[in-house]
């Protein structure tokens, strides 16, 4: 059985960079646009890297800044200073 993890962002200016970074770091992910939101799902695992985001934004970025734009998530969370990971093991 397929086991998808997912993250949903508000569709706004910050999230466009977030979504781009997630898609760069997770080539197996699928992005869906729905009114006012961007939903990204992937088999088993999605990772969000601070480094990729900082490159996209051209500034320092704290992983927890994501909390402002995220709407929902599915999967076990593993967060530290450098990444935010959602996964089913």
């Amino acid at each position: 059985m397929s086991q998808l993890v997912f993250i949903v962002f508000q569709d706004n200016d910050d999230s466009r960079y977030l979504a781009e970074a997630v898609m760069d770091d997770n080539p197996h992910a699928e992005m869906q646009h729905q009114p006012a939101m961007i939903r990204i799902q992937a088999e088993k695992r999605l990772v969000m890297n601070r480094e990729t985001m900082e490159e996209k934004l051209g500034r320092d970025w704290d992983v927890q800044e994501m909390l402002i734009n995220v709407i929902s998530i599915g999967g076990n969370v593993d967060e530290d200073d450098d990444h935010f990971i959602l996964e089913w093991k």
Partner: protein
Amino acid sequence: MAVQNKKLNLKDKYQYLTRDMGWEPTYQKKKDIFPDEDFEGIKITDWSQWEDPFRLTMDSYWKYQAEKEKKLYAIFDAFAQNNGHQNISDARYVNALKLFLTGVSPLEHAAFQGYAKTGRQFSGAGARVACQMQAIDELRHSQTQQHAMSHYNKHFNGLHDAAHMHDRVWFLSVPKSFFDDARTAGPFEFLTAISFSFEYVLTNLLFVPFMSGAAYNGDMATVTFGFSAQSDEARHMTLGLEVIKFILEQHEDNVPIVQRWIDKWFWRGFRLLSLVSMMMDYMLPNKVMSWSEAWEVYYEQNGGALFKDLERYGIRPPKYQDVANDAKHHLSHQLWTTFYQYSQATNFHTWIPEKEEMDWMSEKYPDTFDKYYRPRYEHLAKEAAAGRRFYNNTLPQLCQVCQVPTLFTEMGAPTKLSHRQLKYEGERYHFCSEACCEIFEHEPEKYIQAWLPVHQIYQGNCEGADVETVVQKYYHINIGEDNFEYLGSPDHKRWLSIKGVKPADEDKNAA
């Protein structure tokens, strides 16, 4: 000597915030300080195993929450200043907000109270901090929702007395009793009920597709509070999953207790969310996603992945999930046809879906809508056109557990009413389903105390014996303004005048 000023990383910061805030009591017994921690039979051997994956410390909590609030209130101001209510798709949409404000927002407040109380019960500092933050979040949700909808209250009916209605109106006893049931349980059951079964497994259905639908119907204020609240929910959901894993990892004796709670609270939540099914399919004039599609994505797919993950602990999917999965084809239609008949006793309006909407439902519900539900609407439309708009004057039989009228049908038999009954200490009790009946059988002493609105009316506890008196005096629903059919209602007329269309009855007067 040089002072090293090394910045703490997230894990260390969180460690300092939680673990080191807890201490072993010396002059009081732990049992006296946390008296409710073990009566449910849950065994915790080591609280230090508690992991909070978000590791949010107070300084970042306030920083990010303040930023969310600033964004949110800037949008509320813009919405109000620019008369945003004039730009929604159709005034019928506002009826979903009336249900939200009276049915959902008071639950946010109940959640605030629930987490504040429950957090006090745990001897583990990590769990106490997580509950405390969630309590503050829930209070924020209750407040921001009231602020967002206060603008609509200036322009539409039915939004004027939400807290009062929540405590009294017949269908609002469904959400109210759900949370009262959770809050009167022990601390671990409360977390399993609300953090896990409700927040993790089910709330996405309300706060993601419905809110996206609000955006699609031009309601900037609601989608913004919805998503702003849900950004807190992402933390709450993670907490819900961690709570379950923590309890299950602590002791194998916990597994059957947790399984029973998951079975119960999945079902209780599913029954509560039947209100959302109707909001999505019937109360959003511009459609985004049907209830059955939302159920497939957010329960069958995501819930499926979750319960597969929990298999390793010996947890199986909720006992009655097959009944819930089957019901996705019927739920919203059965509920809306019921509310249509009882609009004389609601603070919102109902209506027969327009032709395009019915066609959309035929497409989304190919096996059920045309066969079972379209003919009912065609009949009701004919009656209404002949001047006999149907209102049901018989008060409905309510389920003793979920308090929804016994309106649902059996799995696989959509014309057969689902009903169970049993006798307990000489009294007969009625249920909407096998699942609710089973919940009762496990805790009869709790559910025989249920405050069932219909029984209360018949017992004379609601200021009168006839519907009109109860609705007006006891519920504070303004007759002829808040209730009855949408077409021709004051809301409808107001909307036509906003849109520059002459109300139909003024045309008649002119002619």
